[in-house]
């Protein structure tokens, strides 16, 4: 059974600081996704990581994937209040017919002024 674990589950940080969210998963996969969810809203796709060593950046967020370590990271640089949200990683179970995703528990990020 594929398990996906995120840490921390809750993160409170000051504006301007850097931090990293970790996503560990238990079985082999080379496709990993990061999503953002604002309160009361649905999930928005942030990054698609498709191979070992993949790194993607958008604004103050950078995501990476190490398939050998079964680890993905979401790094936040110089946080701003607008980044406050819940962040989910999701791992593809690897079936050829499509992306059947297993989600982590989510990391609730609060950026304080």
């Amino acid at each position, binding site marked *: 059974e594929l398990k996906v674990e995120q840490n921390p589950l809750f993160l409170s940080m000051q504006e301007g600081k850097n931090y990293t969210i970790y996503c560990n998963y238990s079985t082999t996969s080379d496709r990993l996704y990061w999503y953002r969810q604002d309160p009361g*809203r*649905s999930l928005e796709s942030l990054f698609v990581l498709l191979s070992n060593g993949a790194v993607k950046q958008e604004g103050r967020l950078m995501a990476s994937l190490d398939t050998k370590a079964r680890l993905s990271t979401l790094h936040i640089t110089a946080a701003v209040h607008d980044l406050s949200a819940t962040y989910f990683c999701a791992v593809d179970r690897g079936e050829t017919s499509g992306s059947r995703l297993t989600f982590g528990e989510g990391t609730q990020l609060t950026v304080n002024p």
Partner: protein
Amino acid sequence: DVKVTQSSRYLVKRTGEKVFLECVQDMDHENMFWYRQDPGLGLRLIYFSYDVKMKEKGDIPEGYSVSREKKERFSLILESASTNQTSMYLCASSTYRDYMNTEAFFGQGTRLTVV
């Protein structure tokens, strides 16, 4: 832009009622999914479908069924609603034709309360 539309944002139903949650996508995606989201439990897959009239159980199918008669529409059915099915339900779709763009796109969610 991909659009996944769920028929209701909020629903209140009585215990024992049969409940239909509808989802439509406009991107000709092959895959469609139903998840439920509960505090502390994250998103859990209920059912998914790779093609019309095709369905497969996810991790928590008990008490649910699905229907996919057309490619763009995927319905979740609660045969006899119970209070433990009170939750946020999220529909999603994705494609496997484009390897670089396989992420799932989500609808806005339906918050179902069973009383």
